[in-house]
């Protein structure tokens, strides 16, 4: 009797704990979905505007209709995810929901969607088409010119930052020299000052060395601004690589440089990728210094392009602004998604052994 009673109790407890776990899981998904909405909706709205706005004004109707389809879909999947236990069922339910959502969107907003706002991608003379040649005097470029310039600024400054920060971080981590600790403190103190405070001196320096109105100006300035922090990060990564390994490589017959390249560098790969991504994104979205270091329209990058599209006094075409924004976001977004793993490592402050 006693045994039977105990068994019944175990089953009851197990059932209760399974049910509790499901409820908790479901609540968690609901909560996360709710807090994600304020983050997602603005981006989604920009995207919706870019593919639906016709008159140049902002229309929220398409957004609400799309949300009316998408929000229930997301919640339906949350429920499905909680109810179904095995992966296959979850995948099938997700597929069905996605198909339903697409069908729903096609019916409700399908007729309002178009790509006309993206015409700037194929039309080099957007402004002239909008307002006639008089407005911008042909100075406003094709978006791809700005896009390529932005790529040049972002990737060149990234390459400089990564190279200098890696070598300097290694040296600071491995070699004792007079003034090393003061140097490290200096790096931190530099972080206290916001670089915008230095805009005027930087402008003068760039002017005196003759790099005003060239892409080299913002490239060098951006590199200098990010370096202190990046050097510090890389020093942390190198500190986490044991000495033994380097000594071992050198007794194995490697020169110091070979040991650095073959044994040490692969172990700080995470740090290098992280600062590369951060460095690239910083250069990609830079606005202040690219604006400050040109006196006319000597060069265009994506941020200035977007600014001029948005700041047109003759009347803004929000559809175009949204479309430019979407194109502008894509590279950062892709990079970020692929390298997320390495960026989160940054907070751990180094490699794990």
């Amino acid at each position: 009797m006693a045994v039977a009673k105990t068994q019944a109790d175990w089953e009851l407890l197990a059932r209760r704990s399974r049910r509790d776990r499901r409820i908790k899981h479901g609540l968690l998904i609901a909560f996360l979905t709710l807090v994600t909405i304020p983050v997602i909706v603005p981006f989604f709205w920009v995207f919706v505007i870019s593919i639906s706005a016709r008159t140049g004004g902002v229309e929220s109707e398409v957004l609400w209709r799309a949300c009316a389809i998408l929000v229930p879909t997301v919640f339906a999947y949350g429920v499905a995810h909680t109810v179904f236990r095995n992966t296959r069922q979850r995948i099938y339910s997700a597929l069905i929901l996605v198909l339903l959502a697409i069908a729903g969107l096609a019916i409700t907003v399908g007729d309002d969607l178009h790509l006309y706002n993206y015409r700037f991608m194929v039309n080099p003379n957007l402004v002239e088409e909008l307002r006639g040649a008089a407005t911008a005097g042909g100075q406003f470029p094709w978006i791809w010119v700005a896009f390529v310039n932005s790529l040049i600024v972002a990737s060149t400054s990234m390459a400089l930052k990564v190279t200098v920060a890696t070598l300097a971080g290694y040296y600071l981590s491995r070699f004792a020299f007079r003034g090393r600790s003061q140097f490290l403190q200096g790096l931190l103190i530099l972080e206290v000052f916001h670089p915008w405070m230095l805009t005027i001196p930087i402008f003068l320096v760039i002017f005196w060395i003759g790099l005003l109105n060239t892409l080299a100006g913002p490239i060098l300035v951006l590199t200098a601004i990010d370096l202190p922090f990046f050097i510090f990060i890389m020093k942390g990564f190198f500190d986490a690589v044991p000495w033994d390994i380097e000594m071992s490589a050198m007794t194995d017959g490697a020169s110091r440089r070979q040991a650095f390249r073959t044994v040490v560098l692969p172990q700080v790969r995470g740090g290098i990728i992280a600062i590369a991504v951060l460095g690239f994104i910083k250069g990609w979205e830079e606005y202040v210094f690219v604006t400050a270091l040109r006196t006319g329209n000597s060069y265009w990058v994506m941020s200035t392009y977007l600014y001029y599209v948005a700041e047109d006094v003759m009347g803004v075409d929000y559809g175009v602004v949204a479309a430019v924004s979407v194109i502008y976001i894509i590279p950062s977004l892709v990079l970020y998604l692929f390298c997320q793993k390495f960026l989160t490592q940054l907070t751990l402050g180094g490699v794990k052994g």
Partner: protein
Amino acid sequence: MANVELRNLTKVWDQVTAVDSINLEIRDGEFLAVLGPSGCGKSTTLFMLAGVYLPSGGDILFDGARVNDVEARSRNVGIVFQSYALYPNMNVLQNIMFPLRFQETRDAPAQAREMAELVQVGELLERRPSQLSGGQQQRVALARALVKQPNLLLLDEPLSNLDATLRLTMRAEIRRITRELAVTTILVTHDQLEATTMADRVVCMNVGRIEQTGTAEDLYLRPDTLFVAGFIGSPPINLIRLENRQRALLDVPDVAETVGIRPEMLQSAETGLPVTVTTVEPMGRETLITADSNLGPLRFLEATSRPKWSAGDKLHVSFRPQDTIVFDGAGQRVPDLHAAIG
């Protein structure tokens, strides 16, 4: 395979003398252990031999040629670190092949495989170091150190990260492998058991100096200094400082300042020195007994797993005079002199 000689080798770090003018000769094919407490300069000596540290003074000679200024990578020395220092970004085979990258080697993978077989990691070649157990990492590190057929193999506390049983196996394994390859080997350790079981000859170091060089037996039975006597042996030797009171109880020569007796050389007896047992510690095969006497506390071993005595018992202990070791005021052993119960 080389004959290695150290002449007045010295290393000074910012005022601190880590290695103080040591002289040592290691014969071709010999297995030498450098034994000492942490901070005695043994690892510093090892890294100077490897070429990682530059000596502050003195010379290092390989086969009679001075190599002080020869870079680490050109010395052809293999080294196994305490942490093993395997390259985490490479698999086992790549790790073992690493030293061959820098030499003109005809068939590197085959040599590496052969070495992996010798240290018995032949099945693990594709694994990463993080997927290996401590003992396997140890074997890989050994294979990597040996694959280039070094002049000299240096082992820096290679067993201290392993658990007790594995340590026993690896001790024998390392001995087997070094013997098979007849490579000159220097083992640095703070574990006397490791030193005495593996090495042909043991060098005992303390605060940068060599205290004694000799076989394990020399160090145990005929320690040159008080430090060696106290450092070697577990449970540790009884060292009796001779004040007036102790002198009255013992028949000792005048130069003697300290008398040493190994715990196993003391026996309970019908007559002899009266003692009172304070603690009884069964150690498996033997029992360690600590007792108070007029000479001070004494440790002795009873060869039984079931102790005859318990705390508070009064008994007598005795020893043979030839088993005692006599040290003078400078802590040096005085040969051929002994102490007896007076």
